[in-house]
């Protein structure tokens, strides 16, 4: 090992004052010590290189790659949301976003950046702490001119090298909350969402669909972000471009919505609270869906501040609630057609069965009033539907019993989710003996059946549910899954195996509601036979559903469900007018939508007319000439 070479030494006896050969020989051990030390030093050094270069070269070559390759995300534009004719409902606007590179973040820079971007420092700091190994994070979208100027003037290596401007896309929603609940909105993925299994591939700072179609079809709409890769030097200067990965834009979503109908429905609900849904009962296409009060999704896009968010989320009017699928209210008299069908099918009544309505009736020692104080007199099923006689249906309910009612209601979809392609649909409630036993461990009291028979009591529905139920009846007892994606094939959920004459009896009753001086007469159209049924959800009287009350106001909610034409209906519309007091107040809303549908159809059939007369503006609800009479309440 140690190189101890012995050169031939010339023995010499010469003397010199410096000659200390013997002494020098004694140093042999010390020199050997030095040589061993040298060997140890070199082993120490080589083992250092061994560890870095042979044992973990990958760790360091990756680190070197991270050093030299700077990749900035190329954000994929989200797919547009279109109506059934391809008209754009939700679009994207190109803008710039501010991105921070984790490796270069200096904490002392953050207050200045937060300040310039109008962000809350603590929120920003928390976000950056949560980044983990994520290399970059977008902290601000849609930069203003001033903010862009700040970034551009501070971006260079000597100032704030962590900042990068990237092109991004800002979601553009219609103004004034138009169709807001259907399309939903996008926002930054939250911490709790990041922990969910379906968001496994998502990262902090990603924009995702938070509600409505944006959420339901997020994976189709979002596209795949690309990456621009450049070679940079230690000062962050670009040396040359590397192979980049292009962004794949998100797929456009073509919806079943009809913008014309949606516009009419929005206008009809102006200033009101409640919901309107229009759908084609033949295939489940949802043509329009409105919920009021609405919110402006444009405020939500991207990175909403915590303050703005709480403000909207805690509004007691619950503007974020999509009442069309999330309200849970007693259907009131809109439930009666189902009762009539159940009665006829079960044979407890036939088309000629009469009951006498003196303005109320007693069951199980309780007096149940009819809404018409002086009574309907002798009344059979057709008039009972069109006049909405409570006493008649008390008797039908008494004869059927709750479980028979529940059987037919279930076929019509009451108490079931419709399965519409929107998140957070509510189920509603259809009471039965089993339902009550399961929920309260109590027996069903026969008296409760009497309330359910007129759509009060424990039975609750969402507007979409009752629309689907009655629309399906009108379409010949076929129930299609309501859907908003035009590319989705119609899905037949259930088919009622009913006697055609029974069905016809019920439909003609509903025709009477509109056309024979019933409560829905305001829905009459000159050219089309409209059928429908009004209803009132008694806010104060509901017992099990008090929790679902929509507001502190105790005024009743008005319902109307209509469809047309009577034979083979093409369109069914529901209107829920919260605190609308009387059921007829919901009728003009539905009428406007139905009229708009058939006007458009006529225009398309005969373009000549369309050119001469532009589509009539929907009539504002306040100016309805056919003012309902006091006796018309149901």
């Amino acid at each position, binding site marked *: 090992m140690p190189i101890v070479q012995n050169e031939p030494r010339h023995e010499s006896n010469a003397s010199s004052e410096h000659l200390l*050969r013997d002494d*020098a020989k004694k*140093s042999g051990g*010390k020199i050997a010590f030095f040589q061993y030390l040298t060997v140890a030093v*070199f082993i120490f050094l080589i083992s*250092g290189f061994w560890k870095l270069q*042979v044992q973990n*070269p990958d760790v*360091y070559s990756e680190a*070197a790659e991270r050093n030299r390759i700077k990749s900035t995300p190329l954000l994929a534009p989200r797919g547009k949301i279109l109506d059934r004719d391809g008209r754009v409902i939700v679009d994207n606007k190109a803008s710039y976003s501010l991105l921070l590179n984790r490796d270069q973040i200096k904490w002392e820079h953050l207050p200045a950046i937060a300040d310039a971007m109008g962000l809350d420092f603590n929120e920003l700091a928390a976000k950056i702490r949560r980044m983990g190994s994520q290399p970059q994070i977008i902290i601000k979208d849609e930069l203003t001119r001033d903010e862009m100027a700040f970034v551009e003037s501070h971006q260079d290596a000597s100032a704030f090298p962590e900042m990068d401007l990237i092109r991004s896309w800002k979601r553009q929603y219609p103004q004034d909350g138009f169709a807001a609940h259907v399309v939903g909105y996008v926002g930054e993925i939250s911490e709790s969402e990041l922990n969910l299994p379906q968001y496994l591939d998502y990262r902090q700072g990603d924009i995702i669909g938070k509600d409505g179609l944006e959420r339901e079809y997020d994976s189709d709409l979002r596209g795949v972000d690309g990456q621009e890769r450049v070679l940079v030097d230690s000062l962050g200067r670009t040396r040359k471009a590397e192979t980049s990965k292009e962004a794949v834009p998100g797929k456009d979503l073509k919806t079943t919505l009809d913008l014309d109908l949606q516009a009419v429905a929005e206008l009809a609900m102006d200033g009101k609270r409640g919901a309107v849904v229009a759908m084609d009962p033949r295939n489940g296409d949802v043509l329009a869906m409105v919920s009021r009060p609405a919110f402006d999704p444009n405020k939500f896009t991207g990175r909403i501040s915590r303050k703005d968010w709480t403000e909207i989320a805690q509004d007691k009017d619950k503007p974020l609630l999509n009442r069309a699928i999330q309200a849970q209210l007693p259907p009131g008299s809109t439930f009666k057609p189902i009762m009539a069908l159940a009665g006829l099918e079960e044979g407890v009544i036939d088309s000629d069965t009469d009951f006498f309505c003196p303005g109320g009736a007693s069951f199980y020692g309780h007096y149940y009033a009819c809404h018409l104080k002086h009574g309907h007199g002798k009344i059979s099923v057709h008039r009972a539907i069109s006049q909405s006689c409570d006493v008649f249906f008390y008797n039908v309910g008494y004869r059927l019993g709750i479980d028979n009612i529940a059987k037919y209601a279930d076929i019509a979809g009451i108490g079931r989710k419709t399965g519409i392609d929107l998140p957070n649909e509510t189920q509603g409630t259809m009471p039965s003996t089993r339902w009550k036993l399961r929920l309260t461990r109590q027996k069903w009291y026969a008296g409760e059946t009497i309330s359910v028979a007129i759509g009060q009591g424990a039975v609750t529905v969402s507007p979409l549910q009752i629309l689907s139920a009655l629309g399906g009846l009108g379409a010949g007892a076929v129930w299609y899954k309501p859907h908003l994606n035009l590319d989705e094939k119609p899905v037949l959920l259930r088919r009622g195996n009913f006697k055609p004459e029974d069905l016809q009896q019920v439909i003609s009753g509903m025709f009477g509601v509109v056309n024979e001086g019933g409560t829905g007469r305001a829905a009459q159209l000159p050219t089309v036979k409209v059928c429908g049924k009004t209803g009132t959800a008694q806010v104060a009287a509901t017992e099990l559903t008090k929790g679902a009350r929509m507001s502190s106001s105790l005024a009743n909610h008005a319902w109307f469900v209509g469809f047309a034409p009577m034979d083979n209906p093409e369109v069914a519309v529901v209107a829920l007018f919260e605190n609308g007091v009387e059921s007829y107040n919901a009728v003009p809303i539905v009428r406007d939508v139905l009229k708009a549908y058939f006007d458009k159809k006529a225009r398309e059939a005969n373009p000549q007319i369309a050119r001469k007369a532009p589509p009539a503006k929907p009539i504002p609800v306040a100016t309805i000439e056919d003012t309902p009479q006091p006796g018309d309440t149901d």
Partner: protein
Amino acid sequence: MFTRALRDLDWPLLVVTLALCTLGVLQIYSATLATKWHDAWWKQIIFIGSGLVMMWLLSTFDYHAALNRVVYLYAASVVLLILTLVMGNKVFGSTRWIKAGSFTLQTSEFVKIVLILLVAKLLADWKLETLAWPDILKLAGVVGVPMLLVMKEPDLGTSLTYLPILACGILMAGLRWKYLLILLGILVITLPIGYHFLKPYQKDRLVSFIDPDRDPKGTGFQVIQSKIAVGNGGMWGRGAKESSQTHLGFLPVPHTDFIFSSFAEEHGFVGVVIALVLYFLLIMQVVQNAQTAADRAGLYICMGVAGLLLFHVLVNVGMVVGRMPVTGIPLPLLSSGGSNTWSVFLMLGLVNSVRLRRFVN
């Protein structure tokens, strides 16, 4: 004498030296391509060429003559160091250089040679079997004065390179184990106290040596980037084109203090082993000249040189792999720079001078 010097030079030592110099020049060329130091490689060739001449001249010169005048050399060194402090050129925040014409000379580099001679002279004169405390204190005193002056520049790295000269001298003169233990004890006790007297940047360097990830963009940067460069080299190296750490500026000074990082990145573990073997041979060849030296003084000179070279390699290469703190001392014969290159060649000249006079006649 001149021709004899040529014939009887330590040719193996010279071959190893020139091999290392060649590696150095190539590496300087590759590392500084397209940087503001792109002309450093041919300057280095000039330094090497002139260094070779100095080495040859010094080898013809009897080292005893130098030893006899070493007191004057020492006095001159101290004066020069004081002058450097007073009127030196400030570069990178410290005054280490004296301007001589268009050249800047780092005085502290040449003081090493004087110290090697002085320690050799003192020990040879004392002719002691083992050192006693007063002897050790005397030695520490004469080495300590220039050390403190260089430390004051401030140039902790170079001042530390005086320590191995002292340590080698003490070791070679003979030291009792008891003394050695006591000295080590003193060292352990004084280190924390000494830490207080360090400059903030020196403290940062020490802290970042212990924990480089604490502030990866600050003082730990050099260590981290150097380790990345070394690791990026892998077994066979990235070659001159793919060595991104070197060429994209992530290595702080790829042609001077961190030249071995960039060498390791471009030539990999294989290249590193070859280079280190060359250094090992260099040191061993110097040690061999110590063994054949005609007298104690010659032995002490060679061992001083060997110890100094070993220390340089240990601290510089150790720093490159993160096993030593960043002190900023160059790698002999590889790092670009005139003062260090010349001082190494002068030391090798001394070694050859000892060698040429190994036959006492």
